[in-house]
């Protein structure tokens, strides 16, 4: 049966099981926009800025594990998606971004609202397409979803010219995808896995170091089994939080620049690191020359380029985390005899780790002022670790990573790799669309929230009761902290003196606004705010010059931490 490109677009999304798209219209989207008006089964969340659409679909993807989808117009609509796409690319988040394009005849003519978005996004997408013929549209959409979610996930962009969305052809959605040049490796090499297990069982100071790969492969349960079976201490990267329960007694907290003392010391003194789904980012490793000098490293990752990129590893294993951990567990079961010796051998190590944890826990100076860390501790206590938390970028993000204990995967949405300010609010909106009944909280700063604050209108329009807790310190706090430590306290450009009154601003959008200035009000107001069913800003005036500690200065070794 013949269908227009726009109808093919809609039908293809339905075949992919898409229930929600985040969108913004323009001249070039009109054919598709009109076709979607006939399809209420696909929920259409119209945002206020295209960057918000991409972050929202990214938040939707992180919270659900499904592919997030957004649709925007050509030219500026398309270029506004770039930061969102780069954010998803760095964090390996599966989204499909549809941009509309000027008609094929006009491409290359510097037409009105024309931008070469395929060229612009080539280095920040996993793959991208320009659809030149309506006959290719269904196949390309099928491939785009497959590429986005398979292997190491990532964003895929599909650019659809306006005439392509108008032309007709026979439509049959392909049942299968076959891309001869793309076959990700899921099954790890058995010999390598066996070697890895032998190495762990002969180690004296082992540690598990896991990242976002655990979340994207759904390997959380397997990871807990592995850790418990081998009594392994566990540390996470920022992206790995929630992959292992934050309240588990074997958990050391996050490692890296703002990691815990115990995690950074354990990595530094370990003799065997089992890294799974982590890519040894510079914020996690500190100075790579001095990273884990005594350790033999096992590295499990689905992406071969992540292996031995910044840190040379001893046993590389290319494969999906879940599959590989399952195989490890099988091999461990076959090694019952050495298991006893192993457990005996690591006793001192576990004792050492316990004393690091006890002697240098995460803490902050309690000096009578309202501390941002206290606010996060209370959010954790009030939500019992059961909320979906997004963050902006900077101090708010690091305090959240430190003081909120994420019990489950897909409960933290944060821009780890790119560090995109303005990510958290639209991402929270995306998660709230997916889970209308769950408590979704964006922990923000007074700087970051202003980068996508326009999405408050989206939240109000679609009744999305997202809570935004603004840790308002009147500064771009993380940059200010670096100026305090390394630039003689010259707080150039980092004062946020002219922030709006966030309570009035929320009210102006028909949302709810609260202000907290004293510690004794924190619980009462947070409870009230979390209980209401409307989008809510909570403007918390915290100690302006509080810092994030521990801190490993840029370029230093992990063991060289500045403590509170």
């Amino acid at each position, binding site marked *: 049966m013949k269908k227009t490109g726009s109808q093919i677009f809609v039908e293809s999304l339905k075949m992919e099981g898409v229930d929600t798209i985040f969108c913004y219209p323009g001249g070039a989207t009109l054919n598709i926009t009109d076709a979607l008006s006939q399809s209420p089964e696909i929920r259409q969340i119209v945002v206020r800025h295209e960057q918000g659409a991409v972050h929202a679909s990214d938040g939707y993807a992180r919270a659900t594990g499904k592919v997030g989808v957004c649709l925007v117009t050509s030219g500026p609509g398309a270029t506004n998606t770039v930061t969102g796409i780069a954010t998803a690319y760095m964090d390996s988040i599966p989204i499909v971004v549809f941009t509309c394009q000027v008609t094929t005849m006009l491409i290359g003519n510097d037409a009105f609202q024309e931008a070469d978005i395929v060229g612009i996004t080539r280095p920040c997408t996993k793959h991208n397409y320009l659809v030149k013929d309506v006959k290719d549209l269904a196949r390309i959409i099928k491939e785009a979803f497959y590429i986005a979610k398979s292997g190491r996930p990532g964003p895929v962009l599909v650019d659809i010219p306006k005439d392509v969305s108008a032309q007709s052809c026979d439509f049959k959605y392909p049942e299968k995808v076959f891309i001869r*040049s793309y076959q990700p*490796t899921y099954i790890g*090499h058995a010999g390598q896995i066996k070697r890895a297990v032998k190495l762990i069982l002969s180690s004296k100071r082992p540690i598990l170091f896991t990242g976002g790969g655990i979340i994207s492969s759904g390997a959380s349960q397997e990871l807990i089994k592995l850790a418990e079976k081998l009594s392994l201490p566990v540390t996470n990267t920022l992206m790995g939080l929630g992959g292992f329960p934050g309240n588990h007694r074997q958990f050391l907290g996050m490692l890296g620049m703002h990691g815990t003392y115990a995690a950074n010391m354990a990595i530094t003194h370990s003799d065997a690191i089992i890294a799974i789904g982590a890519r040894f980012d510079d914020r996690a490793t500190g100075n790579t020359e001095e990273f884990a000098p005594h350790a033999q490293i096992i590295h499990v990752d689905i992406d071969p380029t992540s292996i031995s990129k910044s840190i040379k590893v001893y046993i590389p294993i290319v494969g999906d985390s879940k599959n590989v951990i399952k195989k490890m567990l099988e091999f461990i079961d076959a090694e019952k005899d050495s298991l006893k010796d192993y457990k005996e051998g690591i006793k001192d190590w576990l004792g050492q780790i316990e004393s690091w944890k006890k002697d240098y826990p995460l803490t902050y100076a309690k000096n009578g002022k309202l501390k941002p860390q206290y606010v996060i501790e209370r959010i954790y206590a009030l939500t019992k670790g059961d909320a979906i938390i997004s963050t902006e970028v900077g101090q708010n993000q690091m305090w959240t990573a430190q003081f909120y204990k994420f019990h489950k995967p897909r409960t933290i949405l944060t821009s780890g790799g790119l560090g995109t300010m303005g990510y958290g609010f639209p991402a929270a909106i995306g998660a709230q669309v997916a889970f209308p009944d769950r408590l979704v909280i964006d922990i923000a700063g007074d700087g970051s929230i202003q980068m996508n604050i326009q999405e408050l209108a989206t939240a109000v329009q679609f009744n999305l009761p997202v809570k935004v807790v603004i840790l308002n310190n009147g500064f771009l706090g993380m940059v200010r902290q670096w100026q305090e430590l390394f630039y003689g306290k010259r707080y150039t450009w980092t004062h946020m003196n002219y922030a709006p009154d966030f309570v009035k601003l929320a009210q102006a959008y028909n949302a709810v606004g609260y202000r907290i200035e004293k510690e004794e009000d924190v619980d009462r107001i947070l409870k009230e705010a979390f209980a209401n069913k409307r989008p809510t800003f909570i403007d918390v005036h915290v100690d302006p010059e509080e810092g994030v500690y521990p801190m490993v200065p840029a370029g230093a070794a992990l063991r060289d931490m500045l403590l509170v």
Partner: protein
Amino acid sequence: MRHIISVLVENEFGVLSRVAGLFSGRGFNIESLCVAETLDPTISTMTIVTSGNDTIIEQILKQLNKLINVIKVTDFREMDYVSREMVLVKVNAEEKKREEVLRMVEIFRGKIIDVSPKTYTLLITGDEDKIKAFLELLKPIGIKELVRTGPVAIARGEKVIKIREKQSKGGEDG
């Protein structure tokens, strides 16, 4: 170290810029790049000459493989190969130089493909050493202009780089 890599890619628009963009975006070198269709018109070969230490070359190979349109990456370090490059050189060929140029072309088994009253345009093919030697000898005569294709390479003997799907590898060896 100088290094030849052969990359089989889908013969589609945009693929060359993906490969070139990968090199520039990650700070890798391209010394030369030669692209053309293979026997199968849906596939092109790119022969890339690059340089870097082992870690860099390993990243280049892995990153190339990661591109969705790349079908196969062959590292010529791992095999015996032959490579050839073609060069066109326009040289001074005034009366008294003509004999000498002709002799040199003969010795190097080149060709003269264009003649003017004052110049010859020469064609020569060969491996890196031969071309280097030839150009050195021409220098005193006077090279006016020079264009090179960059080398192409192929495995020695019966070995064939098979045009087949990127196989899901079992894993990496240590």
